[in-house]
């Protein structure tokens, strides 16, 4: 394998990891606050559709992005209503949201565009275009470092950089701000937060809404950055891979970056192997596709370092003494 191939694979790793990373961080905010979110998939899917549809109708990817975020936040609020206000089962709520998104997106897409549940292909201003980082062209010929910079880091759409910057930002918010302290506390022991005079409900809603915004970015990137339009079920389990990455990362932001990059790499390799399948490669592509899930099961089982979730995760807070 030559350097160019490796760079290509790594380049597509970054692209493929981006929606995973955004969704993973979304799950991180939510679960750190004690609200388990298996509805990442649905929120991403909703955002992918809404952003693509609005971008197609208005011709502006930016309006599409805002609309996509709004769509994901709307679903996030349903999740909040069910799991925070009405103290329902968070897992069941997540399952419902996934189906709601799966059904509604196709229903509305069919109604709006009559193209079998897809949006028209997005072109021009309705898509995110690659950004060339400063000096990328000038450094293109510098061996290794220049190539890494100009090929790997440069030339992605703006949401890729937003995702990458979200990692240090999330770390800073979580460990260096008042909001982060309270967020982590409410996921560990909501009673401690409540008796300290901070409303639990507000914090958890904030976390759930942030998760909505981040899944909104993830979905919008899928439909308007990675692809050029929405197709039915286009998230294809990415929400669950993000969930897997979250467990893999043990609910920590920097590790979330590595976990999603790893899963992105697996997907990139799987994509590439598929195209060179005739070459007689022995590892079945299905194994590559299943690998993130298998790895998560192994991690979850504690065979390679135990993953301990936030203690109050999944439980609605009921005031009691």
């Amino acid at each position, binding site marked *: 394998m030559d350097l160019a191939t490796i760079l290509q694979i790594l380049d597509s790793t970054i692209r493929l990891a981006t929606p995973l990373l955004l969704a993973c961080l979304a799950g991180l905010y939510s679960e750190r606050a004690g609200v388990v979110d298996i509805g990442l998939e649905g929120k991403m899917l909703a955002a992918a559709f809404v952003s693509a549809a609005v971008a197609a109708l208005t011709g502006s990817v930016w309006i599409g992005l805002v609309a996509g975020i709004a769509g994901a936040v709307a679903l996030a609020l349903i999740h909040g209503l*069910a799991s925070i206000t009405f103290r*329902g089962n968070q897992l069941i*709520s997540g399952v419902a949201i996934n189906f709601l998104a799966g059904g509604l997106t196709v229903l509305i897409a069919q109604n709006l565009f009559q193209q079998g549940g897809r949006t028209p292909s997005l072109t021009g201003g309705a898509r995110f275009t690659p950004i060339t980082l400063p000096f990328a062209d000038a450094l293109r010929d510098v061996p290794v470092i220049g190539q890494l910079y100009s090929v790997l880091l440069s030339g992605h759409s703006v949401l890729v950089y937003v995702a990458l910057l979200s990692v240090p930002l999330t770390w800073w918010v979580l460990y260096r701000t008042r909001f982060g302290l309270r967020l982590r506390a409410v996921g560990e022991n909501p009673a401690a937060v409540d008796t300290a005079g901070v409303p639990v409900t507000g914090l958890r809603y904030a976390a759930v809404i942030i998760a909505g915004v981040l899944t909104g970015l993830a979905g919008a990137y899928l439909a308007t950055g990675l692809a050029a339009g929405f197709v039915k079920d286009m998230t294809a389990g990415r929400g*669950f891979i993000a969930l*897997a990455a979250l467990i893999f990362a043990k609910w920590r932001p920097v590790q979330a970056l590595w976990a999603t990059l790893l899963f992105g790499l697996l997907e990139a390799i799987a994509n590439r192997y598929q195209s060179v399948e005739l070459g007689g490669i022995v590892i079945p592509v299905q194994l590559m596709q299943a690998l993130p*899930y298998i790895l998560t*099961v192994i991690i979850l089982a504690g065979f390679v370092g135990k993953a301990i979730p936030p203690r109050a995760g999944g439980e609605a807070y009921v005031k009691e003494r």
Partner: protein
Amino acid sequence: MERMPKWADAFLVPLISLLIAFVISGLVILAIGENPVEAMRIMVSGAIGSSYGWGYTLYYATNFMFTGLAVAVAFHAGLFNIGGEGQATLGGLGVATVLLSFSWPHWAVALPAAAVGAALFGAAWAAIPAWLQARRGSHIVITTIMFNFIAAALLNYLLVNVMRPAGSMDPSSARFGAETVLPRLHEILGLVGIPFSRASPANISLFVALLACVAVWALIWRTRLGFQIRAFGKSEPASVYAGISPFRITMYTMLISGGLAGMMAINNVMGEANRLIMNAVEGAGFIGIAVALMGRSHPFGVCLAAILFGFLYQGGAELALWTSIPRELIVVIQALVILFTGALDNMVRLPVERAFRRFGRRSA
């Protein structure tokens, strides 16, 4: 101290939830410029207006009874099995393995063998997450989700690389022998002189599913194992005190749950397709969640809810055929049912409880 009568809890609350889900679905239909009343009419006539419609409705209901029971049994033990989809997938593999390994002389011999194969494969697929939860503490919800994806990849691999007959481009297994074709509903009903559509896939598996409902009821409410399952589901520390082993109950429950989900394959794989195809489960594993929630985890409720969802599925297919409303409407209804009977249960329940209390006080 009773908050409300049992019948209200068992029937009224789910019915109100269902009503809300339907009203919202009606609004969705209105919003996309169709007529909800007309849509309902098409669904009703398409799903239960003819014996053809009934045949499909009952065919789908059979699938959902198995997966609904699977989720319900696990619920009783306090376990949330989202893995019905993967377990049913493996069940199909079990059916195919059994039916392709021997040449079966008659369906009556093949059916029990295939059912055992389906149950064993489904149970085995549930056993791993169960073991991981009971011994390693990994959350069964996450592992069963992961196992759904792994099952899909595994089946994909097997169908493409192993089970595909030589020369076929289709990622599916060979046909099972003609002797293994299960009697369809029209043949069975024909025996007692009732005419029934010949074109519908409903088959003898329906009766196996109904039998399974009765068996699960007896298991949960009348046997020692059921007692232990319910006790464990209500309180793990108390169960340990009583000498009930959490490990054993988790394993037994998930084996039964996975076995039930797997047994769905006698309906869709053996009874309908007569060969193993890609994605034969078609989401029935997930619908089991809605069915179990709607049926309050009671086998009788599961049976009714499964028929309701069978109706929705067949009605939805008809709707897609005659109007511009796509089949996905059913997914939306399913989502709303899960949302209102599951996650937003308190939103429906609390006002009903309040109403009962007020009414009770006034009449007292």
